[in-house]
């Protein structure tokens, strides 16, 4: 194994805001038609982390959502199932049971989600509980306050500590980009997360606005590309929150394709953290297959 040298995170990597946004708007002009559209809609569906993260979540709600995860749209059983369901730690057992016999992963948020304002030990325990309950993936949040103070070592060590507790479970690191504000901060946070051992980097908790945006996603994808170039290690990407329309999902896929290439266009390396996106994708898929739009009433709201 080769030794990876960790860069100095205090060295800001300049990112030109206007340039990033222009690049996104140019990529948005890609016209996705016919076969490539059908292919992309199905791909996007298979990349969804179907999510419920509410104070009012109950076993009943989670079980119903898992049922949708298995078969998103009963009239078309050939459609792919989603990649994972994402729940709070105390719902992991329920979700695990409901998804038994499928390849759908259970992801659990942890580390005092969504604020992350807790002692390290609490976060470690939170993570351990989720992992012990059977979570395949852990979605942790970084301590944004410490990050904005410039306490990068703290962030790095915290992620590394959580990663250790994760064991076999995949670690997704939520940067909460809406609170980091600048693209430079997003880039630095991405680099810290990847060097500290993240398997995925993720934009947002979904609790802060703005959540995922395409320019932020592009900055993170470029960070992943540079990390891959420097270390040879692939890291996954998950934009989460605020992606509701199939058209946007396709635009995200274009971003991935033209920044990282075909290898990342799988649920193993790219996810959508979204719930309402599922039904819009289904609607578009039905439209592609039948030629007509079906009313929203035909799609389950789980």
């Amino acid at each position: 194994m080769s030794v990876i040298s960790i860069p100095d995170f205090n060295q800001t990597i300049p990112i030109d805001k206007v340039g990033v946004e222009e690049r996104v708007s140019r990529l948005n002009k890609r016209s996705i038609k016919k076969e490539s559209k059908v292919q992309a809609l199905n791909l996007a569906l298979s990349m969804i982390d179907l999510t419920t993260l509410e104070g009012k979540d109950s076993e009943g709600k989670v079980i119903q959502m898992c049922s949708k995860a298995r078969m998103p749209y009963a009239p078309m059983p050939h459609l792919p199932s989603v990649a994972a369901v994402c729940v709070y730690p105390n719902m992991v057992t329920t979700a695990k049971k409901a998804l038994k016999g499928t390849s759908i992963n259970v992801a659990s948020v942890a580390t005092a989600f969504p604020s992350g304002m807790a002692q390290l030990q609490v976060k470690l325990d939170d993570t351990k509980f989720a992992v012990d309950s059977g979570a395949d993936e852990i979605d942790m949040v970084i301590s944004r306050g410490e990050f904005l103070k410039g306490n990068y070592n703290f962030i790095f060590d915290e992620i590394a500590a959580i990663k250790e507790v994760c064991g076999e479970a995949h670690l997704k690191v939520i940067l909460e980009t809406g609170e980091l504000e600048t693209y430079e901060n997003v880039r630095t946070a991405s680099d810290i997360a990847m060097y500290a051992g993240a398997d995925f980097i993720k934009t947002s908790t979904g609790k802060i606005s703005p959540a995922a945006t395409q320019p932020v996603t592009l900055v993170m994808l470029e960070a992943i590309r540079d990390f891959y170039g420097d270390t040879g290690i692939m890291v996954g990407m998950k934009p989460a929150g605020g992606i509701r329309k199939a058209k946007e999902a396709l635009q995200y896929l274009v971003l991935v394709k033209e920044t990282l290439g075909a290898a990342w266009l799988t649920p193993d390396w790219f996810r959508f953290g979204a719930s309402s996106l599922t039904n819009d994708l289904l609607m578009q898929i039905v439209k592609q297959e039948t030629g007509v739009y079906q009313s929203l009433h035909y799609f389950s709201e789980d």
Partner: protein
Amino acid sequence: MSEKTKENEAEATANGSPKPTSPNADLKHDFASFWNYSPAPESSDFVEIRKQYQHYIDGSFSVPAKKRYFKSINPATEEVLAEFAEGTSEDVDKAVKAARKAYDKVWSKLPARERGKYIYRIARMIQERARELAIIESMDGGKPIRESRDVDVPLAAAYFFYYAGWADKLDYAFPGRKAEPVGVCGQIIPWNFPLLMLAWKIAPALATGNTVVLKPAETTSLTALKFAEICMDAGLPAGVVNIVTGAGQTGAAIVDHPDINKIAFTGSTEVGKIIQKSLAGTDKKFTLELGGKGPNIIFEDASVDQAVEGIVNAIFFNQGHVCCAGSRLLVQEGIADKLIKKLKQRMETLIVGDPLDKNTDIGAINSKMQFNKINEYIEIGIKEGATIHQSNSSNLPDKGYFCKPTIFTGVAQSNRIVQEEIFGPVLTIQTFRTPEEAVEKANNTPYGLAGGIWTDKGSKIFKISQKLRSGVVWANTFNKFDPTSPFGGYKESGVGREGGLHGLYPYVNLK
């Protein structure tokens, strides 16, 4: 540390070891094996292209005196698109007479506000027919529909809107002076931005009260004649705008016509010199917008990913058929390897092909002549010992004139590919060590049209841009145009300015 490593280290420092690169520097991204975009061609069904086009003189289409026609082809298919009238000195004379009559009797007598109204109307009609014009521009010139749709046509309309606004405000443009029109203007435009160059020329001329005789380039006359239809539909008085099609001889007839008061030319430096010679000793005013070999300077502290995008926009925009293209890349040595690697990666995602496909990034080379010229230069580059790299992922269509995006590394300032304008998707890459060296190299050509500076540091932008002998300097961007901004060259890149307030001067006599 063992004796041996110490020794190696000492040796390395003494001799200057190459900069260490990442052990994974050869890792490649695969952009092509999965999820390729299905064809998404813009439909050209509703576009009406006649078999034959006449000159547009004195408000109507008129058959050329010698009844000779030439063919214009679609460079993406090599099929004949239409026939155009070949302009002779008789035709030019007829057009100039019509323009003179319209100038004396109508246009110069019209209240300025009325002139403005016509120009506003033309601008709106360009917007209304934007889709049609964009498709024709792509069919005739080979440029990707994404560019003709998003750049050429909207900008052309914007120039008409902008100059329409000046028509009745010339007293404010030149406070305390009286701006009088110069008379009949002869205008000769190139093939790289046919409709846009027409707008750059006609809009300020009409706004200031002149009448025009315009000759579009022989390979791209179609949108000019569509523009003639717009003039008719707009009810523009006869003779205010006259369009004579033809090649170099037609242009010469315009330049040499004794009753023309001003010549505006955009094209090659070679032809510009001939024009300037023939204008010597006459009292004709003139503006020349000629060639360029734009330096694009990337400093170590630039935002690299955005700079790569800027390089792509600078040289591969419109197949590199841009006089202000950033065709010479100057990179600071510290980031050269990283930047070139990223640029090569980015080039793999450029789609070369059918200009009418909405996903095409690089369309067809405008003409066979230009295609041959570009290929000649690529050969010259190889012979000069430069290292060539072309993108691999895009397969070129079997028919039509297509050229892969090309970069040359290992080039020197003395190379012909660095000194001469190629006017194609060919970039030369040189490195530099200090800002002073960058400026020296940037200025070391006979041209001085446009350049770019990429750095995160604002003060550096101002410091360097003041030292560049260049009409336009873009900072952290490239190839941005706006009607309010003047455009023009230093040295052999031209005389005079077009666009903005400055663009009014060549079309007025101040009293």
